[in-house]
């Protein structure tokens, strides 16, 4: 599904990713944990195609294609999805029209006709239920005036609408209370399938109680320094990141 090999990236001449390698197979859920500034969100942005980041080396293979050669739109249409840590507000663009443009973009890529109004609305209704997204939020401007929890639920709703092959959840748990965390996680879990993979970026082990990963990686200073099963997350929670850092030095 996704094969990252020795990826190096910088922003404004500061090198952030310093040779990161990671392979994710279909159906797998990988979690990336790490201290602030270790490059977690940079990895998400680089994979999604944010142009402010400069790729300085390495490669990323996405389902047989060179991901780094595609622009952000092409990556999304090829089946990559990023749930933003800070979903962007777009005043004046209704959530529903935004999604229709997105769904039709994907359909165009697949050589299909734009979706019909009724079919689209049915789909919206079905997917909104998944994350208990309030009907009123569909007609409001994208993320404008949404609470933190509503924004994150909207991200998962969008993911459900686009049915990506590979989804990155960038600190989807930040700013969520327990109930919202449960709803969002259930939404994600409902979408788990043998064909779909996830990369879950988080600070805290808590999210991984709900979205149980197959693998956990620890990112420190732009590299994966340790990988393991879900137990690694518990160990981190208990001992903190300093333990790993000391471990590396030693």
């Amino acid at each position, binding site marked *: 599904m996704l094969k990252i090999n020795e990826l190096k990236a910088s922003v404004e001449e500061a090198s952030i990713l310093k040779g990161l390698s990671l392979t994710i197979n279909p159906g797998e859920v990988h979690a990336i944990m790490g201290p602030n500034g270790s490059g977690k969100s940079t990895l998400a942005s680089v994979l*999604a*195609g*944010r*142009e402010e980041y400069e790729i300085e080396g390495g490669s990323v293979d996405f389902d047989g294609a060179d991901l780094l050669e595609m*622009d*952000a*739109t092409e*990556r*999304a*249409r090829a089946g990559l*999805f*990023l749930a*933003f840590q800070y*979903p*962007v*507000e*777009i*005043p*004046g*663009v*209704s959530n*529903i*029209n*935004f*999604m*229709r*443009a*997105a769904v*039709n*973009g*994907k359909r165009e*890529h697949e050589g299909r006709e*734009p979706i019909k109004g009724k079919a689209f609305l049915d789909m919206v209704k079905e997917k909104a239920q998944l994350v208990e997204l309030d009907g009123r939020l*569909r*007609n409001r*401007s*994208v993320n404008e005036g949404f609470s933190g929890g509503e924004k994150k639920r909207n991200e998962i709703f*969008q993911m459900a609408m*686009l049915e990506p092959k590979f989804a990155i959840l960038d600190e989807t748990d930040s700013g969520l209370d327990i109930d919202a965390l449960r709803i969002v996680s259930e939404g994600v879990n409902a979408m788990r399938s043998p064909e779909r993979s996830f990369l879950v970026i988080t600070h805290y082990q808590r999210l991984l109680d709900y979205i149980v990963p197959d693998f956990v990686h620890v990112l420190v200073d732009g590299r994966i320094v340790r990988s393991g099963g879900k137990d690694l997350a518990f160990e981190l929670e208990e001992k903190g990141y300093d333990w790993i850092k000391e471990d590396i030095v030693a």
Partner: protein
Amino acid sequence: MDTAKPQLMDRPKAEAKHAASEASGAALVSALDAVLGVQADVALDAVPVPHRRVERWKYTPVATWWKDVLAPEVNTVADAGCEANPVPGLDAYRLVFVNGTFDAAASDLPVHTGVTCMPLSQRGDAKRQDVDAFSPEGSDWFAGLNGRYSQEGLYLRVAQGVELDHPILIHHHTCGAGAFNVLRHDIAVALNASVKIVQWSTAATGADGSVNVLTRADVGQGARLHIDKVQDEEGTVRHIAYEDIRQGRASHAEVHTITVRGAWVRNDLAFRINGQGAHAELNGAFLPGEGEFVDNHTTVDHRVAHCTSSENYKGILYGKSTGVFNGKVFVRPDAQQTNAYQQNANILASDKASMNAKPELEIYADDVKCSHGCTVGQFDSDALFYARSRGVGLEAAKAMLVHAFIGDVLKGLAVSEVRLEVEHRLAEKHGWDVWSHHPNDDA
């Protein structure tokens, strides 16, 4: 009219004349005198011929104006190939002018109790509005040209309490070379009467020359006037338009100016609010493309207490285009409890585009609420990336942001068919297919 001591804004400014411009102006006047004939003796000498050293024309390239218009020709209706109705589906009375000449066959005048509506040339003895100290004809050279040569336009009187059932569409089409088309619309809406007007200007692909339109509207006590003004001119026509709006007590006047297309456009709006409890609204959107120039100058003159005004202009500038916004708001000493709002926001969609924006507020009353904001920026890169990360193409994402950006201005248009047609024409001009299958309000 106004007995208060003159304020700064009334003080005559010593505006310098510029020899070359004066010579061009004089040459044009003598050519026009011969071709069009003098209709009214307007003293053009009192004001300088516009040039770049005069503040009101500082950012407006007048020097290039002369080359197209020094040899004016009189074109007639017969030359026209103008579309029958520029706004499909609009149920409206229509006055069609082609190259400044009334096209009776294409027009459909209202027959309505209390409404006098006809081309200006047919008004007989009926009086035109007086030109006074506040009329642009006396203070602006191009408006003076309008006063001197205008013989055609809309003549409209709406009697007390009358509400016209359909909008009046004034369609002006320019074609051919060397056009010098002058129109004057003379409007008075009496006590508690109400009317909606759509001013639509088009021009043929090869048209050049100039179009000069002056609209004078007296809006009586409790009366309502809505003007939707759309400029969609091909060719290289230079378009100058004046709106001179006088408002009585508790009246409501709105002018919405949408510039879809135009090689060189100057809009000059002035609202004089003379009666308490009145509301003025002026909104605009301009989206010049490669090589186009659009200038919006506005003046709102709060002369009495307890009035409100709201102004919202949005510009998106593409290619090597230039925009100008100048918004004057005067609040005179007697105009206590004024609430005036002005907003001008601009997006430079290209690094070759430029925007000159200048809000000017002169406030002489102390118990007022006046706010203004002015921004020049670029597309929100976070929003663009967010949309692209959902599979929306870059151009479609920009079109979406454009729609959102000017959405509030378009929603303000008085006639919904006008809004739909404007959206359609903008989409066509800029190649946005994304608008056609999901206008923002169908969900």
